[in-house]
């Protein structure tokens, strides 16, 4: 038996960041991780001469040393900003349209707006208005958050003001665009489908097609990535995960690797500890689960320990999408096959919503392809003269779960082959330069993450289940959650949310 202030189940981004903040603030914390390495999604693996990043494309919230964004501020607080080499990226993304046209958007509001106006002169007016609205939207959010924080009393001054005046009068842009889909908003502004694709890119970061992707997340992404610039990390996300783990240990807290949690221990309706996979018990005042709520409630707790209200609450959340990813190591530099930008979205038709529907099947004939060339961000990511590209598409786990084991490998390679063939039409010679290649399917993600459906972004993040509606309600005293299942997924948001959860525990403890 061992006692801690806080126990964290899972060393993913959410678990590590919560634990780091707690450990730095002298809370004796224990993190349990079933894998041999920390990080969850934030990890990498080796094949031959290559180390493949698994999850990170672009880190947000960094900005510069002198003008640190929220993510950089966290790394500073945890004492690991200096231990890591941060690499700024100048381009947000490149949209590769059908027919070969490509639009690479600079991470700069003025330049991006200017470029799009040049590419789509007939809609220049709307483009300028759109950028104005996106920025205005974010300013209103900032104002709302600041005012909420400044009036903590309940009912607060802000609440009274909103009730009296009406929300749409105070926050015009938020009220108009806050709960609408990306497609809906883009249709309001633009006629050109091509232009719409050039602006909707971040849908793939949340795994929702434009017609279901909340515009509010798109507007946040666009703004935050532009203002703070996207960053990559030398050595990939595993470096951040390891640095966080070492911070936790350095401050006298524990991280147990190769040690999964078998169940959460309950006493009088309260979560009081955990039993690890070796049968050892640990107790704490608070348990943070970095495991999905689904698996926490339906795996670490008994049915009778889970309140009916909890099961009812989670009915409106559906398991989100997974991915099929090809990790490719090439024996040539990126320019030799025409790769010029790091983060690419590739469309073979102008109807992203229709193409997305193929996510429910195993083949990859029409799915939009996300291709990231890490060598563009960091030429040292692999040996000189080589390059790394990860290319894949979002896929739901269902079709893969239904395969018979006999069909699995063939299906996996057929899907990967299709992706490589489609890439070849834009980047001729690619296949002939492949030196290493690994393919991950939804089942691979399910194996390593333990997530239902192999989900990589948590629950489906559509209008009714994200932004205002993240599943953050708590049902068992002593048990709370941190991670992409209960918040906007992605590295920056997860670090921030993990820190927030830790802060609220620190506050409780005072």
């Amino acid at each position, binding site marked *: 038996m061992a006692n801690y202030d806080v126990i964290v189940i899972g060393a993913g981004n959410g678990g590590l960041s919560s634990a780091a903040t707690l450990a730095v603030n002298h809370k004796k914390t224990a993190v349990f991780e079933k894998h*041999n*390495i920390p990080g969850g999604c934030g990890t*990498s*693996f*080796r094949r031959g001469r290559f*180390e493949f990043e698994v999850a990170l494309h672009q880190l947000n919230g960094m900005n510069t040393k002198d003008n640190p964004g929220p993510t950089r501020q966290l790394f500073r607080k945890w004492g690991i900003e200096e*231990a890591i080499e941060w690499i700024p990226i100048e381009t947000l993304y490149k949209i590769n349209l059908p027919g070969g046209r490509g639009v690479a958007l600079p991470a700069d509001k003025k330049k991006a707006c200017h470029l799009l106006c040049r590419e789509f002169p007939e809609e220049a007016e709307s483009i300028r208005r759109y950028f104005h609205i996106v920025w205005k939207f974010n300013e209103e959010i900032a104002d709302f958050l600041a005012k909420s924080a400044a009036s903590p009393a*309940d*009912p607060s001054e802000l609440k009274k003001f909103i*009730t009296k005046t*009406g*929300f*749409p009068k105070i926050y015009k842009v*938020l*009220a*108009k*665009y*806050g*709960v609408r889909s990306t497609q*809906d908003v883009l249709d309001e502004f633009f006629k050109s489908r091509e232009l719409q694709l050039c602006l909707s890119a971040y849908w793939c970061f949340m795994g929702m097609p434009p017609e279901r992707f909340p515009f509010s997340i798109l507007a946040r992404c666009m703004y935050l990535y532009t203002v703070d610039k996207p960053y990559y990390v030398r*050595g*990939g996300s*595993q470096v951040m*995960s*390891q*640095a966080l783990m070492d911070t936790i240990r350095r401050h006298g807290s524990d991280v147990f690797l*190769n040690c999964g949690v078998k169940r959460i221990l309950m006493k009088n309706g309260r979560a009081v500890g955990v039993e690890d996979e070796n049968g050892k018990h640990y107790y704490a005042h608070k348990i943070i689960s970095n495991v999905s*709520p689904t*698996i926490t409630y*339906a*795996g670490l707790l008994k049915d009778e320990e889970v309140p009916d209200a909890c*099961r009812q*609450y*989670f*009915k*409106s959340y*559906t398991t989100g999408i997974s991915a099929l990813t*090809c990790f490719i190591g090439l024996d040539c530099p990126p320019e030799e096959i025409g790769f010029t930008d790091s983060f690419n979205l590739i469309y073979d038709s102008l109807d992203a919503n229709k193409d997305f529907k193929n996510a429910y099947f195993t083949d990859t004939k029409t799915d939009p392809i996300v291709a990231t060339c890490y060598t563009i961000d960091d030429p040292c990511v692999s040996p000189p003269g080589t390059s790394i590209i990860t290319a894949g598409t979002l896929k739901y786990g269902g079709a893969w779960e239904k395969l018979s*084991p006999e069909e*699995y*490998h063939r299906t996996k*390679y057929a899907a*990967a*082959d299709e992706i*490589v063939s489609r890439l070849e039409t834009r980047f001729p010679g690619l296949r002939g*330069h*492949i*030196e290493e*290649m*690994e393919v991950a399917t939804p*089942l691979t993600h*399910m*194996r390593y993450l*333990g997530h*239902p459906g192999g989900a990589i972004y948590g629950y489906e993040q559509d*209008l*009714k*289940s994200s932004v*205002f*509606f993240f599943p953050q309600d708590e049902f068992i005293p002593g048990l709370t959650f941190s991670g992409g299942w209960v918040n906007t997924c992605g590295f920056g948001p997860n670090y921030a949310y993990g820190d927030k959860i830790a802060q609220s525990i620190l506050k409780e403890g005072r």
Partner: protein
Amino acid sequence: MSGKPIKDMIISTMQNGPETLKELEMAKKTGKDISLERGEVQKKVAQYHPSILHLTVSEIEPVSPIASRIRLVSDNGYLPPFEAGQYINVFCEIGGVRTSRPYSLSSSAKQRAYYEITVAAVENGFVSGHLLQHLKPGDHLEANGPAGVFRYQPVFHSKKSVFLGGGSGITPFVSMIRTALESGEDRDITLLYGSRTEELAMYHRELSAFAERHPNFHYTLVLSDEEKEGMEHGFIDAERIRAHVPDILDCTYYMCGPAVMMEFCRKALEELQIPGRSIRREVFGTRRDIWNEPGWPEGMTGDEMFQIKVGDQNIEAKSGESVLTALERSGLRVNVCCRSGECSLCRVQLVSGKVFTAQGALLRHADELFGYIHSCKAYPVSDLELRF
């Protein structure tokens, strides 16, 4: 008062807000109960990657004077699918020490009634000797896997395969050949198999029979220590490869065998100007004479003894044996699979001290930055402190 009512109030005044709230209410009525997910993920994952395989020996049969094939059936009747060329890591307890060894599966991947591994006697082989002497039908074994990346990858490997096998390194090729030929795959396979003598060549009869039956399989046995009619004498060098492979640049090459043979073949392929991307190499155990590997600290013999501190335990370690071996000898349970540097399961933190890292340890950038080692490929060259 919680924040909820005001949230709903705000949203209901936003464009598309009432519709979204209504949708949410509907979803609460029609959604799936999370309790239905109980056990589902484990069940699905275990179809492919059970955390441990419980196996029973069903048959043992010699395939050469020094090697036997061992058929293993599953205690629960289920064996996961694998890709021909992959291995399982077999655990055994010898004299109170729990250790393990990876063995390539040699059975066809097209059937999963049993797995077949082939165990050859190795000089001073701790595990192979034990298995060959003591294992009998009906015995139980634990293993993990199947795992490994030495396999035919149809997306970028050529349909023309050249297998270069040496000694007991033939075993993954046996699986690959059985799998490809039995299922009539559209591939062309050339096998050059190096063995000291004909008698020591494993699966020789089966491979010869395959070659007679299948025009797309070409088999040549190359004997180094004897000359026999109808067989080639010598080593698998560039000239021999060229003689047996008409279009050398259109093929993918696969090598598996003892370190010396692999190095020899690597040079041969280099001489033939085969690009690196067309060469696949199986990691094949750890060399016993690590002190002969390039970079080994000068003046050290492999017999030096050091202390390894792990938590409050102090254990003895010999420089010529991997850190993993020392940990296992002391009774510590280490997560392990490939024992060849590539899977990273035996990764531990090197808090202080120095190790010699053998070739083939696929460390991550973060490992080097924060001082982590793969214990199977790390040899103590000073006293060490480790952290799990």
